[in-house]
């Protein structure tokens, strides 16, 4: 009697598993809509590029038309749109995502969300990964001294990207409160020494750094500051 009950339970579980698996497979087959060539794209723009465009290609592999309801991006720096609004069975198309590089650096991961009327895959998450090489890697962009500190020079290291050949850099403007000196320390590598003429009072300067034969400008700062806030103290630039 117990064996019969156990067999019955096993049979029931088996049936449930088979029914569950079949329901998933059949459901997917019946409603299979857009098939994407890739949902993640990685791009490596050149140092001079201002924007990159990712092409996410799709094909309607289902037996019903699919309508793209919306295409949204995770950042104002990325604009995305679908080539087509309605995609007939067997038809192909693409969603283009344009990422504005601006002054961004490093690896930027931006999401694009596509909403369709497909009942199985109504929301598709696309990822545009952009690896941006900084033409000049500047570290740090700010040097500072506390008032009363010994006015020793502090260094800013500058390293050019591989695809951005640099023979020389210059720093402007000349500032009466800080002395600047550029030394080439390697191929595309430089050291900028900045030294305050005195550290007895708060002073600040903002410099523009530019590589030869390039219009791109970078900003670095130097400052002598009071550690304790003082509203009455004016800062000379």
């Amino acid at each position, binding site marked *: 009697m117990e064996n019969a009950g156990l067999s019955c339970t096993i049979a029931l579980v088996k049936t449930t598993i088979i029914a569950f698996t079949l329901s998933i497979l059949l459901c997917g087959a019946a409603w299979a809509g857009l098939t994407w060539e890739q949902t993640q794209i990685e791009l490596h723009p050149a140092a001079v590029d201002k924007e990159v465009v990712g092409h996410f290609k799709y094909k309607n592999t289902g037996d019903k038309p699919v309508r793209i309801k919306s295409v949204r991006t995770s950042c104002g720096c990325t604009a995305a749109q679908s080539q087509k609004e309605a995609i007939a069975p067997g038809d192909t198309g693409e969603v283009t995502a344009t990422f504005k590089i601006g*002054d961004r650096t490093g690896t930027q991961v931006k999401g694009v969300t596509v909403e369709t009327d497909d009942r199985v895959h109504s929301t598709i998450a696309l990822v545009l990964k952009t690896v941006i090489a900084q033409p000049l890697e500047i570290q740090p962009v700010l040097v500072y001294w506390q008032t009363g500190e010994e006015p020793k020079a502090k260094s800013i290291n500058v390293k050019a990207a591989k695809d951005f050949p640099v023979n020389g850099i210059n720093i402007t403007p000349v500032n009466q409160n800080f002395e600047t000196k550029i030394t080439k320390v390697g191929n595309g590598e430089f050291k900028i020494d900045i030294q305050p003429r005195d550290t007895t009072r708060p002073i600040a300067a903002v410099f523009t750094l530019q590589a030869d034969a390039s219009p*791109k400008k970078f900003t670095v*700062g130097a400052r002598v500051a009071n550690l304790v806030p003082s509203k009455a103290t004016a800062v000379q630039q």
Partner: protein
Amino acid sequence: MLKQTVALILLAFLPAIGEAIYYRHKVSWQSPVPASETVTVDLARSWGDNAIWIDARPDNEFERDHVPGAIQLNEDRWNDLLGPFLATWSPEKKVVVYCSTQSCNLAIEVAQRLRNEAQIKYVFVLQGGWEEWLKKKR
């Protein structure tokens, strides 16, 4: 009956576990910013003149409205906007960076660059961003 129930529950978990493994790199399991690097609107406002407010939103949003006294610094025009910020910054001041909402990443990215590139220590991302600031202002 109990075995069937357990079996069905386990079956129900299978797709969820599968998705969790498949999308493990796409799901934010934790906040990208440690709690120590964020600040509430109330606390940031209590810092008064010892805080520098940075608006990391795009130009048009900043022009529409912003926290009084905030300096604009975003990654669209980082090199143009960094100068005015560096001229204002002072080591004893706390830097509060905000963007539109809790979910926007612009403030996080600007805060990271200030920490990494300018090596500024006291940089905080405003919890809830501009949206939260407006709520608290009412």
